[in-house]
């Protein structure tokens, strides 16, 4: 335990050549008592410090009546220095934490104490529309990088005393604030406890990226399947909290995590809940179909062309064969090369600024593709198959799942080259089996289809039931209160 005493000298010594740490010495009006106001330039609002800290310290006569430093600290807390968020710090660690979080601290040397005032004023991005989860019909609010703003957005939507926001700090040096968000009377307490335990167990100097947080939350991350949902959307986050899931808001990240989730959750989009259940169900079925097409179409094409030509309708077989006659590459190599080209285009498009990225897509996709057909390097059939699979992958709302599918698509193509449809089936068995073996915070990954006891299989999964038929929360996440409508605690 630190034995250092709170004093202005201590803080000056800790930040000797840091011009951003500002110290203002103030002599209290009508008194010989001196205090030092410390703050970090850029993290605080100068106007707030001037109006609500420095001005009262200089001008309030009441403070001058303090007999000693201890009484001065008490007076600061009781009125003359009026600010809604103030706190007495009696330890150096506490005072240092307050200073580094962007608060101003008034150091009273003789009292060996400091009073912290929340005068944060750092520049931040305003609340804007989500760039990755846009909807036509629905809220446009998205999370920003400031955790407290994000928690306020959640509080505004869920105005219940059962909403719990437990904040902890992670990272020995970064001291990143992380809030665990859940509904006390709804969320499974075991899940909440498990998440808190994992947060407490994080032993790293700093959390600076989303990937680090995900890796620590999931424990061992040797799976390519996404097991956490992240969202920029406040409405999606709140809807999941209402379902009984637990949320995590990390300071510095414009996203929030939701857990525990199953595979089906990666197919759910905010817009599903903006439309009627019939339309939403059709869209959901389309998404599942697209995921399957994105995963297996190139592999099935290779298997058909290489091993099972007799299964193709005669006209189609003739058309494919006539188009590949002049192509110097075997069909499987064509498919592999084109998948590789597709991945390169995708990466190039992502890394470049948006206008240039679009140009890359046009030049790469249309111009080079067209030229490859004319040059007789690629057949139109292969381009159609790979492009269809690629576009089908983009229909998925989750980019994490989309990436996983892209990875397995390549693996299945390689298997189809080795053993046609048989090997593709074995590959699919392996993928499905791996999914079946996965659990995320005790929830089977393929619930409610597997491990869910056969309940709610067609309620907000491949199809979405009407609101009046969807009166319970997902049973597999183990909510305390399972009723969403009618009987509620």
């Amino acid at each position, binding site marked *: 335990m630190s034995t250092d005493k709170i004093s202005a000298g201590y803080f000056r010594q800790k930040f000797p050549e840091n011009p951003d740490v500002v110290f203002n010495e103030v002599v209290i009006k009508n008194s010989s008592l001196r205090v030092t106001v410390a703050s970090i330039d850029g993290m605080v609002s100068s106007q707030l410090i001037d109006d609500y800290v420095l001005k009262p310290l200089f001008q309030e006569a009441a403070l001058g009546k303090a007999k000693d430093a201890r009484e001065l600290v008490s007076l600061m807390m009781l009125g003359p220095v009026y600010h809604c968020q103030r706190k007495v710090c009696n330890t150096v660690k506490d005072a240092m934490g307050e200073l580094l979080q962007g608060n101003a601290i008034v150091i009273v040397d003789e009292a060996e104490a400091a009073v912290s005032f929340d005068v944060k004023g750092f520049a931040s991005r305003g609340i804007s529309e989500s760039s990755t989860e846009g909807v036509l019909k629905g809220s446009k609010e998205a999370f920003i990088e400031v955790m407290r703003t994000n928690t306020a957005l959640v509080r505004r939507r869920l105005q219940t005393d059962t909403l719990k926001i437990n904040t902890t700090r992670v990272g020995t040096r970064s001291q990143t604030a992380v809030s665990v968000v859940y509904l006390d009377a709804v969320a499974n307490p075991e899940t909440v406890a498990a998440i808190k335990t994992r947060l407490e167990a994080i032993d790293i100097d700093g959390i600076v990226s989303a990937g680090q947080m995900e890796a620590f939350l999931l424990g061992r991350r040797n799976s390519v399947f996404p097991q956490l949902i992240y969202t920029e959307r406040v409405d999606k986050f709140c809807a999941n909290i209402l379902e009984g899931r637990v949320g995590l808001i990390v300071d510095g990240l414009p996203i929030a995590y939701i857990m525990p989730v199953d595979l089906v959750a990666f197919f759910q989009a905010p817009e599903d809940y903006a439309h009627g259940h019939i339309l939403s169900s059709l869209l959901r079925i389309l998404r599942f179909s697209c995921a399957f097409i994105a995963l297996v179409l190139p592999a099935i094409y290779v298997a058909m062309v290489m091993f*099972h030509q*007799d299964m193709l309708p005669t006209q189609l077989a003739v058309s494919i064969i006539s188009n590949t006659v002049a192509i110097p590459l075997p069909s499987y190599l064509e498919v592999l090369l084109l998948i590789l080209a597709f991945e390169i285009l995708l990466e190039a498009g992502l890394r470049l600024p948006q206008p240039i990225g679009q140009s890359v897509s046009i030049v790469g996709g249309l111009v080079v593709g067209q030229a490859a057909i004319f040059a007789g390097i690629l057949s139109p059939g292969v381009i159609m198959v790979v492009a269809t699979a690629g576009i089908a992958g983009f229909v998925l709302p989750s980019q994490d799942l989309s990436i996983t599918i892209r990875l397995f698509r390549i693996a299945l193509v390689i298997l189809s080259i080795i053993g046609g*449809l*048989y090997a593709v089936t074995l590959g699919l068995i*392996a993928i499905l089996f791996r999914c*079946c073996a996965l659990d995320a915070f005790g929830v*089977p990954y*393929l619930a409610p*289809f597997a*491990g869910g006891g056969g309940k709610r299989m067609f309620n907000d999964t491949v199809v979405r039931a009407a609101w009046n038929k969807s009166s319970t929360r997902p049973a597999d996440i183990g909510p305390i209160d399972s009723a969403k409508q009618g009987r509620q605690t």
Partner: protein
Amino acid sequence: MQKISTRQVYIMFILTTLSPAIALFPSFVARHGSAAGWIAPIAASVGLIAVIAVLHGLFKSGRFADLHGVFGGTFGKWSAKPLLTVYLLWTFALFLLYVRYYAERIVASMFTSVNPDFFIISMLIVVFFASRAKLSAIARFSEVAILVFAVIFAVFFVSLIPTLRAIHVLPVTHYDAVPVLRSAYPIVSVWGFITLFFFLGEHIEKPDLKSFAKKAVLILSVATALMIFLVVGSLGPDTAARMPWPFFSAAKLIDIMQSFDRLEAVLSSIWVIADFILITVFVFIITNIVKKLFNLRESRYLTGPVAMLGYAGSLLLAANTRELELFAASSTTHAVNLVLCVGVPVLALAIGKMRRAL
């Protein structure tokens, strides 16, 4: 230990019967039951209900977690070990049979010029990794697979309806009772596999066999009856009786919108899922019997040797498909199956009741 539910046991059981069903049932019931053969699964369901009732009687007290415990409690410790050895040998023989059967089916329907070794090895590699996971993973896998097979069966049935000839499956009269019962004999023998699942009893949550039993028996008997009805109805009993794989021959008749035909390769590759479940479940059962027999703590490391012996044994089991079919369809095979899967549990129940051990 993550336990599986009785519902999951029944689902796994239904799926493990799919491979033997398409390999054995259509030709056997067509041979013995002729046009009325499709009723055999309905008749066999009575036998399955009886087996379930016996198993329920063995486990309802909750005194024993698995069959090993039941045998020890009813027949005595000294009799239980040799009996367990017999079960081990027979389960292993069935395991070899179905590994080889699966490979021969793939060769016959998709890759006529490929050596079955390739299919045996590739399947056993996947099974090896799968059986090192928890039993709950294969149980969950079965829950998803049954949905896939429900869709496949629906498409298969609807697509085969145009090829159906009523004269092949009708009329059915009281004169068919004896042939139907004779046809039901191998079906009961295969459905008796449910008994083997209870060597995994310690992995099953409170084996309350009554729950989901009605649904399971209904699903299994109706699906099997429909499958035989359509296969025999499309090909005719005489043709179906003489064909090695009548199910896939019937699939060849499917023509979707005059564009997609020759779907037997697709069906055969999808049936690999059922083979995978069957073989993996057998590996779990075998390793669990070995664990009990030798009082081992862990059975996971046995999966490697079982898979390797499975490869060698399945090749040695029969020289060709004909020999394999003779072994699978022989009366002795069905008789041993019936004795071990039905007879011994009935005996255990009777002795257990007399000795008040249950």
